[in-house]
């Protein structure tokens, strides 16, 4: 495993281009585009203010940089560095900006969710969509980029509008049977739209592309409901994580629940492997490391090394007592993600913040539990294979695959606290983001097993 040099970064804004060739990162008001392989700076754009959001267009030709404070969006072209575009939302303000899937339109949401402005880069035309709903996830595009579903709120009722992205025509408009819609998400095949209600009520509704209600699912009443939703890449399963600390898997034929994954604080089943991160004081310093070029003494956190140990069941995991009188209690399944091959589902129960649960979807059983020393910040699956990268805000990145798991120390001057990470398209490299730096982590592939850098933790 190799690590790149450390580059500066702000606002955790670092993104691979969809075609995998470039890497865009922001440093204050500058946008830097690098080549992924050489990490040479290809382009350097200067924006008008500190960049708060960047997004690649789907064809990797343009990058939009949003400066919400000033209500500005600047678009840069990679092919024509001199080309520029500036969209000013003026007094209406700006809270969100995104590309349409065709890469030629920009959707800007104004403050107070008054409207969504659709700006075209091809024509002068501007269109507006009124009444967008301010919610967790109110806008979603189908994977093929044909349709956009938008959550709306009109006359105290939730609606969903389906637009054709090619000409922004309204295709379907229907009201949903929700109290207070919280999010919408297309199935990867683009034919089913999952709609879930606010956390006060457990309700998941499934609509066909043509607006028919396919099914409504409600697991229980009178308690906090859905917290997170994820489609499996095959569109076969819909995983619904809720505040009761369970994940319910719905199938795509009957839309009924297949199984229920609880997240108990103790793991009793001896068939489940529990990897527990353990810290140990190292006997030797980082002296033997050859790369990067000799540095000063390592940071304080890297003096201890960590590795995974297989804990013998029953294992009791560290739990967090939720504060009852505050909003957004730290309970329930807050994050879930299917592996790209549909075989695994990774979940995180917010009341057990240190653990990542990996479920075997073929057997519909718990497979592995990873318990970290500190709360899990983020995890993401390798787009190519069942390999999960986890970060906990420490100076390590953790990788799990069915073969085992590894804890890797990120080398660098001082402390590199990995707050977020994102995979490259082909799964060869991984961008690790800290508060004001980022680096790339190149994973060994079969043909190029380079000199291992850092200390790969014990392969347990």
């Amino acid at each position, binding site marked *: 495993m190799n690590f790149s040099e450390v580059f500066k970064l702000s606002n955790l804004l670092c993104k691979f281009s969809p075609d995998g060739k470039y890497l865009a990162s922001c440093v204050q008001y500058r946008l830097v585009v690098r080549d992924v392989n050489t990490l040479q700076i290809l382009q350097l754009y200067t924006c008008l203010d500190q960049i708060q959001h960047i997004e690649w267009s*789907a*064809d990797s030709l343009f990058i939009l940089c949003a400066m919400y404070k000033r209500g500005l969006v600047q678009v840069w*072209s990679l092919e024509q560095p*001199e*080309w*520029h*575009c*500036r*969209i*000013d*939302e*003026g*007094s*209406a303000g700006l809270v969100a900006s995104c590309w349409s899937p*065709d*890469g*030629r339109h920009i959707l800007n949401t*104004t403050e*107070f*969710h*008054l*409207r969504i402005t659709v*700006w*075209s*880069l*091809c*024509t*002068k*035309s*501007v269109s507006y969509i*009124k009444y967008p709903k301010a919610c967790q996830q109110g806008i979603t595009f189908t994977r093929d980029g*044909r*349709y956009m579903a938008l959550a709306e*709120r009109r*006359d*105290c009722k939730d609606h969903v509008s389906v637009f*054709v992205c090619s*000409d922004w*025509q309204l*295709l*379907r408009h229907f009201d949903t049977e929700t*109290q207070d819609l919280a999010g919408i998400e297309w199935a990867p*095949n*683009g*034919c089913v739209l999952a709609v879930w209600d606010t956390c006060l009520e457990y309700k998941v509704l499934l609509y*066909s*592309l*043509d607006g028919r209600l396919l099914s409504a699912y409600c697991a229980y009443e009178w308690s906090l409901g859905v917290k997170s939703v994820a489609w499996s890449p095959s569109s076969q399963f819909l995983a619904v994580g809720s505040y009761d600390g369970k994940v319910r898997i719905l199938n795509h034929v009957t839309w009924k629940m297949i199984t229920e994954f609880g997240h108990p604080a103790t793991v009793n089943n001896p068939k489940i492997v529990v990897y527990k991160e353990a810290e140990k004081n190292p006997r030797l310093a980082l002296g033997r490391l050859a790369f990067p070029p000799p540095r000063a003494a390592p940071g304080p956190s890297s003096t201890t090394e960590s590795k995974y140990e297989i804990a013998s069941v029953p294992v009791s995991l560290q739990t967090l007592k939720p504060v009852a009188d505050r909003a957004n209690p730290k309970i329930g399944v807050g994050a879930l993600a299917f592996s790209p091959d549909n075989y695994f589902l990774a979940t995180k129960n917010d009341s057990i913040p240190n653990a990542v649960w990996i479920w075997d979807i073929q057997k519909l059983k718990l497979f592995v539990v990873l318990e970290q020393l500190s709360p899990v910040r983020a995890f993401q699956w390798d787009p190519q294979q069942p390999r999960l990268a986890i970060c906990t805000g420490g100076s390590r990145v953790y990788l799990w695959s069915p073969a085992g798991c590894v804890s890797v120390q990120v080398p660098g001057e001082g402390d590199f606290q990995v707050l977020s990470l994102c995979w490259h398209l082909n799964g060869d490299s991984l961008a690790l983001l800290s508060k004001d730096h980022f680096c790339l982590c190149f994973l060994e592939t079969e043909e190029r097993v380079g000199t291992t850098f850092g200390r790969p933790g014990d392969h347990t």
Partner: protein
Amino acid sequence: MGEWMTVTDPDLSSESKNICQYTSETKMSPSSLYSQQVLCSSIPLSKNVHSFFSAFCTEENIEQSISYLDQELTTFGFPSLYEESKGKDTKRELNIVAVLNCMNELLVLQRKNLLAQENVETQNLKLGSDMDHLQNCYAKLKEQLETSRREMIGLQERDRQLQCKNRNLHQLLKNEKDEVQKLQNIIASRATQYNHDMKRKEREYNKLKERLHQLVMNKKDKKIAMEVLNYVGRADGKRGSWRTGKTEASFFLRNEDEMYKILLNDYEYRQKQILMENAELKKVLQQMKKEMISLLSPQKQKPRERADDSTGTVISDAEEDAGELSRESMWDLSCETVREQLTNSIRKQWRILKSHVEKLDNQVSKVHLEGFTDEDVISRQDHEQETEKLELEIQQCKEMIKTQQQLLQQLATACDDDTTSLLRDCYLLEEKERLKEEWSLFKEQKKNFEKERRSFTEAAIRLGLERKAFEEERASWLKQQFLNMTTFDHQNSENMKLFSAFSGSSDRDSLSVHSRPRQKKPHSVSNGTPVCTSKLTKSLPASPSTSDFCQTRSCASEHSSINVLNITPEETKPNQVGREGTNQKWSMASRPGSQEGCYSGCSLTYTNSHVEKDDLP
């Protein structure tokens, strides 16, 4: 008096007895009698009793006393003491005879009364003690009653308390329910209020938003704009076209068409997948069915033989179905009839298979049970023994191998030494020849010895044959002897059977069976004569019968001792008689130790039985 005294105080009973005795003694005296009579007869007279007590009859008042007695006696129904008067004037004479008769009668009466009194007293005593007992019982029961009553009260109290508790809990539950209801109502009302408020707020918010929108949008904000260097081409290369009024409808239709196309495609894809899955499942079913048929066909005769009609018919049905289905390859059709046929046939065969498996399971469990009861355990023990033996053998063999190896090594090392020594000693040829001669001599001697041994063995074989013949003879003789014994009751005849069977078996393997006891007995070994052994062997079969009698005796003693007494002499005698008739000497010898013989016989039978068991497998 005595009665109520015993009732009140049992300690005083002895005293009361004394009193009674005293009274009885006093009653004996005539004076007391008189006094009693007086007491009974007239109360006013009692005052005079004391004055007259010392002398009822004196010289002066003979007449009066006689007349008084007469009067008294006549009132009691005795004949008059006076002679019957012939005349009125004549003075009535005292009739001595009557007096005496009266006295006698009175005495008899007195005795009777005494006896009765005694009886009554004893009865009284009995009743007293009974009373006592009952009193005790009564007291005990009363105590019991008291305790039980107390217990009952305690239980009632507890019950009451529990009920109280229960009531309280019910009340609490009710309260809680009420509370829950109230809270639910509150929640509901709050929820409605909240919703209402929310709606109101949202309306307000919407109004504000609208207002803001108008303000923001209508101001013709110059700032809201897009600066582009030049417009870029569309990603698909087409020219950007914007809808006009005319084309809008057609656009919409086109979009709808496309949407439906997508949906259709999706559904088609899913249908295809489902069809594929169905086909796979059908294949699996078909294969399963085939395998089931093939599995069940060799067994189908068996169930038919068992006359299990239902399964038989089912099998035949299944076969028919199978035939149909295999004939028509209509697996690709998803027709309902086919599906039904398939599922039905599978179900039937599954049932058959299930029943068959269940039967097998039952059999297995039975076998297991049987095995656990007797044979399997023994076999296991045997097995263990066998394994132990084998292990021992292996150990021995290993040791042997080791020693052999060691020897071989030693030989290999010593061989050289030997050869050298031989070389060294080769010049002693004379000695060698001498040794050769000796060798040949030894050989001759060995031959002779072998010849002798052979003759000995032949003799031994002959002896064995003779012995066998003799034993056969003895068996026949024993049979005859027991057939002659006719005066046996039922039990004896049973014993006979046992006996004859035993004797037969003992004849067959007399050599193997009786060799052991013979070796145990010291005198037989010392003598070694066939006569003695025969005697012993003769006594052996006879003794078990007596042992059997012993057993029967013990058995019978459990039921009735008298029977045993009747049986034993009968049974033991004929045996002895028979023996006496045939072989007096032997009977003489056996008689004194008949009991011991019996016991030894017992032990012998046990050993014999053991031996037989060993021989059985």
